[in-house]
């Protein structure tokens, strides 16, 4: 029944099934303490498995490794097929890294009445299973199925556990993604029908489908490309389809927000690399200027709007829009360097934005507000939090020595020879990044202690403020648990900043394979 290609397939099967089973178990647990520890334990097991997967993945091996497949709907040649290439592998690893961190990060999250941690963590584990599935599947139909299904836990995470305006944000998020998904389904059916008319036998197998559809005439490719593009552009998101992201990020609980900008949105760019380019190379080349224009607009527009936000979570959303612009630029510049830069940027963006959002969540949990104007001069009250915030900010603006720098550098370096004009405009975004990050830090952490969230902490404007006073008033510095949550992220920020080579080695061949379909020779 199950066909598998290597002895390591069990790793992938376990990676898919363990969080799924864990989600069920956690949902059924009545004891909240037990539920928390079970969820955390499962996410750690998942991380260990993902580390094994990293170890047994051969960078220079077959394109798709650890593959297995089970027939599902033979009438349409649909198989439940999974397998990973280098790009999918680092994405899966990233999910496995982030999950224990967000579970640990929301350990003491205050939930509304009637909501429980078991429900919350169960949905998070379900998200983990589904997103791993999305990155790891090698069947276009299964990809669509998981793409849509993963909306449902996120919808409930935002709608049940989110902020005041959560209903609006949840529905908006769902409808945007659902529309994109359906148009992608149209594209997928189109590809199937083309394969059927070209060879007499339609298929949804990614390998077979790409080899057939990539030779389709240009006008067929363009329609298929546009179908997939709609889904990925909404997901990524590219301007002007981004408006759901700020709402969703602001209303989502921090853990869901990290999964949203850190993992779910990556599906968009991943889709460009895995589906758009190999399936429809001619259309990708023809329409690349369109994508590049949207990408560069995204970089500039996202940066400017980020600077103008009054809410820190919305700020993160716009920063992400800007960064996704960079990533899309790297993908559609079609050079090996910029492609590798984009893939590593996907990982690094998850780490840096995830860290930033978690720190903001810690701050918001203290002050009961994510409004920038509610804070001021906090560095005196909570020096450690300020430090963490500052480091998260530096990696977000891609300071050399932090993880994001090498990615952004590779994207710009690689894109310049093929797309000089777009690259020059995008480079302006680097300057803007420094502006919006440092200005935010300055407003929240420097100067005198001020702001509505801190009223009553100090003895009045200008009064001396010491950390121990803040702690007594419920506004203390980072606790032990919070330090442990941030520590792994900090290690990754610095570690990947100085030694990114392992990451580059794993994704290089997959990027080269992807780009070979548009006629670009890798190194």
């Amino acid at each position, binding site marked *: 029944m199950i066909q598998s290609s290597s002895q390591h397939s069990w790793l992938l099967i376990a990676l898919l099934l363990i969080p799924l089973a864990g989600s069920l178990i956690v949902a059924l647990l009545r004891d909240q303490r037990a539920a928390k520890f079970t969820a955390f334990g499962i996410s750690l097991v998942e991380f260990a498995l993902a580390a094994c997967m990293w170890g047994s993945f051969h960078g220079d091996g077959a394109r798709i490794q650890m593959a297995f497949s089970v027939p*599902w*709907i*033979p*009438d*349409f040649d649909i198989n439940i097929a999974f397998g990973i290439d280098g790009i999918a592998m680092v994405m899966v690893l990233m999910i496995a890294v982030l999950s224990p961190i967000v579970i640990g990060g929301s350990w003491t999250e205050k939930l509304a009445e*009637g909501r429980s941690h078991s429900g919350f963590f169960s949905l998070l584990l379900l998200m983990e299973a589904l997103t791993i599935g999305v990155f790891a599947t090698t069947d276009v139909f299964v990809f*669509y*199925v*998981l793409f*849509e*299904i993963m909306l*449902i836990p996120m919808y*409930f995470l935002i*709608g*049940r556990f989110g902020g005041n305006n*959560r*209903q609006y944000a*949840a*529905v908006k998020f*769902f*409808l945007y993604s*659902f*529309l994109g998904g*359906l*148009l992608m*389904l*149209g594209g997928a*059916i*189109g590809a*199937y*029908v083309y394969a*059927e*008319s070209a060879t007499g036998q339609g298929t949804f197998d990614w390998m077979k489908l790409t080899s057939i559809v990539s030779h389709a005439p240009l006008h067929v490719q363009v*329609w298929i490309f546009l179908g997939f593009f709609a889904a990925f552009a909404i997901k990524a998101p590219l301007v002007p389809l981004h408006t759901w992201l700020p709402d969703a990020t602001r209303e989502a609980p921090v853990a869901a927000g990290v999964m949203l900008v850190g993992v779910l949105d990556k599906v968009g760019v991943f889709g460009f690399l895995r589906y758009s380019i190999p399936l429809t190379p001619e259309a990708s080349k023809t329409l690349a200027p369109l994508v590049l224009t949207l990408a560069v607009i995204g970089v500039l527009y996202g940066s400017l709007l980020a600077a103008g936000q009054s809410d820190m979570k919305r700020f993160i959303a716009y920063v992400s829009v800007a960064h996704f612009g960079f990533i899309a630029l790297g993908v559609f510049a079609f050079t090996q360097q910029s492609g590798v830069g984009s893939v590593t940027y996907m990982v690094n963006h998850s780490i840096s934005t995830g860290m930033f959002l978690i720190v903001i969540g810690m701050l918001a949990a203290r002050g009961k507000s994510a409004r920038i104007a509610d804070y001021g001069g906090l560095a005196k009250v909570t020096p450690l939090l300020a430090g963490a915030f500052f480091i998260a900010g530096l990696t977000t603006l891609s300071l050399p020595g932090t993880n994001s720098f090498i990615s952004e550098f590779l994207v710009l370096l690689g894109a310049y020879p093929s797309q000089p004009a777009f690259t020059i405009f995008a480079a302006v975004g680097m300057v803007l990044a420094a502006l919006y990050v440092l200005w935010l830090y300055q407003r929240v952490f420097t100067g005198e202690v001020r702001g509505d969230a801190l009223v009553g902490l100090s003895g009045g404007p200008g009064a001396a403020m010491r950390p121990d006073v803040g702690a007594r008033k419920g506004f203390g510095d980072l606790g032990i648990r919070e330090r442990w949550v941030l520590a792994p992220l900090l290690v990754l920020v610095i570690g990947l900043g100085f030694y990114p080579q392992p990451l580059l080695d794993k994704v290089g061949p997959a990027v080269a394979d992807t780009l070979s379909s548009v006629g670009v020779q890798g190194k």
Partner: protein
Amino acid sequence: MTTPASLPDIDYAGVAPVLIILGAACIGVLLEAFVPRSQRWAVQVVLSLLAIVVAAIALGAYLYTGPQNTSTFAGSIALDRPALFLWGTLLALGLGSILLIADRVVEPGGAFVAQAGIRPGTMLDKEQANRSSMQTEVFPLALFSLAGMMIFCSANDLLSMFVALEVLSLPLYLMCGLARRRRLLSQEAAVKYFLLGAFASAFFLYGVALLYGYANSVKLADIANAAGGTNRSDALLFLGMGLLLIGLLFKGSVGPFHTWTPDVYQGAPTPMTAFMGACTKVAAFGAILRVLMVAFGSTHWEWQTIMWVVAGISMLLGAILGITQTDVKRMIAYSSVAHAGFLLVGVLALDGSGIRATLFYLISYGFTTIAAFGVVSLVRDGTGESTSLSSWAGLGKRSPLLAGIFTFLLLALAGIPLTSGFVSKFVVFAAGMSAGITPLVVLGLIASTIAAFFYLRVIVLMYFSEPAADGPTVTLPGMYTTAAITLGTLVTLLLGVYPSFMLDWAGTGGFVV
């Protein structure tokens, strides 16, 4: 010289399922006359369920042993694979509907009144609402209607089809007016349905007359032959076809011929709404599929553009008007209009994969609908069912299981993967695209998103809102309603997760000519 009339050969084994249902309906009428009132309900329930099960066994036996793709009654009744598949679908959905009709726990005494003639609002009416007697003739009426539907979708000539149309419709008109609560709405629904239905039947009959004038025959195959390469008046053919289709599209509640749907769905007793929503849809689309493919397949270049427009209008009308509804039953009614548009995409593919897609869509949609109306019948307040959407707020907190099931069914109606609703949309759109009607498919995808909004709104209400203080309560369902909801939900899940076997069954053959 006239040939002496002779009885045509009848394949009794083939038509046994229909005969069993009709026979049981006749016995049911007799039982009404001879069985004491106190025992009628039990006897009727047993008889109806038994009849359906026996008919299903007869159908199964014929499928295994009988010849393929024949017709009987001198070609009037087709016994081809689509017809037999639709019979099976109708029997299965009929079983679910009878289970809902039979429930007397949810509404004490059942959802039907004993005497529909009592004027609403009078003392007698109030007294009747509180008595636990019911009109047990509902069971034979439902069986008659079911048999009519079975003949309707296998009729190979237009006169048989017309007779079947009336057999299926008349009991429905009657049963719509029997709701125990909100008598006025129920009577309004019955009158509206009857009047509009009568008009639609008249259109149908005019169409038959014109087509007879054109082809000199009412057989579908003869019409197709006549249309292929003659110099007869096309006006007669297409006028006749148009009028005929108006009658059929009305029954299938395809927009813009849907105007009766929301009012009737809302006013009819909920088990009856489920019956109409599931079974009438199956019968109507079975007939539309057959008429378009067998009789008018050869001339499809001439008319298909108009039908594309109809399908597009139906999808958009259903999806957009559904957003503004504040009543659950009306919302599902508009959703059924949108679904009718999606179904037409499969029909208009006009090939084998289109038949398969449409048949699969019909069975999965039918089961989802029955389960959904089963759930609707359980949410009640002091005056009966509480179908106003606002009163569903916070249901997820008060009865998580029911809200969970309803959420699943709504997701199925919206077409989310791992539900039968998604697979049916997928096969229909795939058939449409390979037949080259891509613009309609894209329109369908957009309409699906619009429709998703109002399904989501209900989920938002149930889970993300606080319950109203004087909100409705959820009645514990009796055995019958539980069985119907379970059946519908399980099939929705099964066909979503493992659809291949049903796709194989649906795709075993085309229409007999």
